[in-house]
């Protein structure tokens, strides 16, 4: 904030003016922009391209058995086939539905319970020891119990994703609320704000960055849990598609399924990152620098 308001004009007070356009640096920036833009674009794709080349060489040179691992070319062909006959979209859609249902259910419960534990000492005493004991149990370890209880239907898959999301959101929401600046709570106190107002107007907004960070972690975890659940007990979805392709020796289809998960997973994370940027732009942190 160069030349910020040490000397402010008579009210209303001025914000620091933006740098004058066409200044001495503007021309240099324009000249650099072409090569700079190319370098930026390249930096996004250089690692994927290198990986694909490495994979291609590995199959072509026989570093991996070509009967078991498909080449990039075969994968592209298989992807086209699976897309056009609807296999990929059908199974992807089934997976996305399971994922979103489990994620939404688990996250909502996690935020509610996390907020209760974070704001109330009684709730913390009642729930926290139990939840913190269940927390280290990997959500995957719940799968056998869920199958015994609910069979291999949709419910057990949604619940395992829900359990993973729940614990992540619970932990971060409670922590986010507890890290609220005490000074802001004093402000609410001197303004005679009620408890619900304190929670809604101060504690939850303050915890929001942590809640959204937790949502991104939970989303990543949800994809992993979804695939495990589909591999263990399912006849549809991307996890099933991968496992079925392995069992019936269609190595290209296997990798198509993996790529689909990667692309969908990245998209879901990107959407959550957009949401985070739109709602927590007020933070002045290293990550939020322009």
């Amino acid at each position, binding site marked *: 904030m160069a030349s910020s308001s040490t000397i402010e004009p008579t009210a209303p*007070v001025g914000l620091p003016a933006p740098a004058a356009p066409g200044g001495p640096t503007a021309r240099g920036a324009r000249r650099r922009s072409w090569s700079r833009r190319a370098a930026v674009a390249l930096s996004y794709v250089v690692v994927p391209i290198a990986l694909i080349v490495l994979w291609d060489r590995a199959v072509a040179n026989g570093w991996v058995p070509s009967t078991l691992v498909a080449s990039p070319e075969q994968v592209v062909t298989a992807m086209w086939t699976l897309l056009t006959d609807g296999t990929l979209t059908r199974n992807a859609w089934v997976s996305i539905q399971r994922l979103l249902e489990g994620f939404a259910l688990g996250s909502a419960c996690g935020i509610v319970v996390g907020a209760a534990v974070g704001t109330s000492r009684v709730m913390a005493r009642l729930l926290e020891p139990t939840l913190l004991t269940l927390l280290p149990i990997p959500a995957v370890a719940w799968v056998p119990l869920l199958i015994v209880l609910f069979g291999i239907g949709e419910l057990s898959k949604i619940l395992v994703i829900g359990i993973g999301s729940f614990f992540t959101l619970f932990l971060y929401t409670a922590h986010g609320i507890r890290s609220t600046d005490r000074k802001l709570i004093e402000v609410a106190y001197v303004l005679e704000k009620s408890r619900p107002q304190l929670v809604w107007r101060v504690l939850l907004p303050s915890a929001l960055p942590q809640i959204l960070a937790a949502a991104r972690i939970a989303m990543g975890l949800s994809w992993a849990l979804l695939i495990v659940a589909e591999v263990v007990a399912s006849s549809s979805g991307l996890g099933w598609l991968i496992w079925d392709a392995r069992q019936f020796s269609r190595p290209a289809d296997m990798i198509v399924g993996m790529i689909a998960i990667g692309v969908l997973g990245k998209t879901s994370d990107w959407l959550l990152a957009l949401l985070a940027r739109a709602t927590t732009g007020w933070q002045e942190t290293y990550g939020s620098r322009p």
Partner: protein
Amino acid sequence: MSANVLEVRIRERAARVGDALVRILGAIDFDVAEGRFVSLVGPSGCGKTTLLRCIAGLDVEYEGEIRVDGAVARAPGLDRGVVFQEPRLLPWASVRSNVAFAISRGHAHEDVDALIDLVGLTGFERHRPGQLSGGMAQRVALARALVNVPRILLMDEPFAALDDFMRTRMQRELRRIVTREQVATLLVTHDIDEAIVLSDEILVMGTRPGTIAERIEVGLDHPRDPTSPEAVALRTQVQRLLSVEPAAV
């Protein structure tokens, strides 16, 4: 003589530090009459912030009694508007939302924008605290403290973090605003000139435990010039009381 808005009758505020019992405040006894501007001056560590927190209802570990408009005040209340040393704004909310956040139905100024105008921030309603300078942020805090039309404004070194130029300016504006709002004010400061320029009465605090060592009536006309002979004489008097060497003018 108008009625007292604030009556402070503290016998003691002690705190346990390790095994020892430390007296932070001793017997403190003073009133603030309606519409008066009173400053509490003292060196760092004299307990002036603790005293203000007691009056605000944020510290209730004292012996004695504090009354606002005759009613015992041992908890925070909308009859007292508090401006802290830091602006303490909600960082995610706009200037307008920060002021509106304070609104309590039945008490409040109907017009938030008029208050924002009063503190000179028209045009900045949609800015977030991170986009404001220190002086501007403290203006928002002042507007927020005034929203519920308090009987007394409690300010804890509100301009201490500002540079000289900005501080002088904010002092002038504070004087204008409290005169217009006709609100009594209790200002805690370690800046003697600030107290002289603003106050009707200066309470000089002594240390360990904190007590009121002297009360000084400031009878000068506004606007005041801190370099005028009367102001300099007052400053010398306060400095003597605080046992600091009078600085060369």
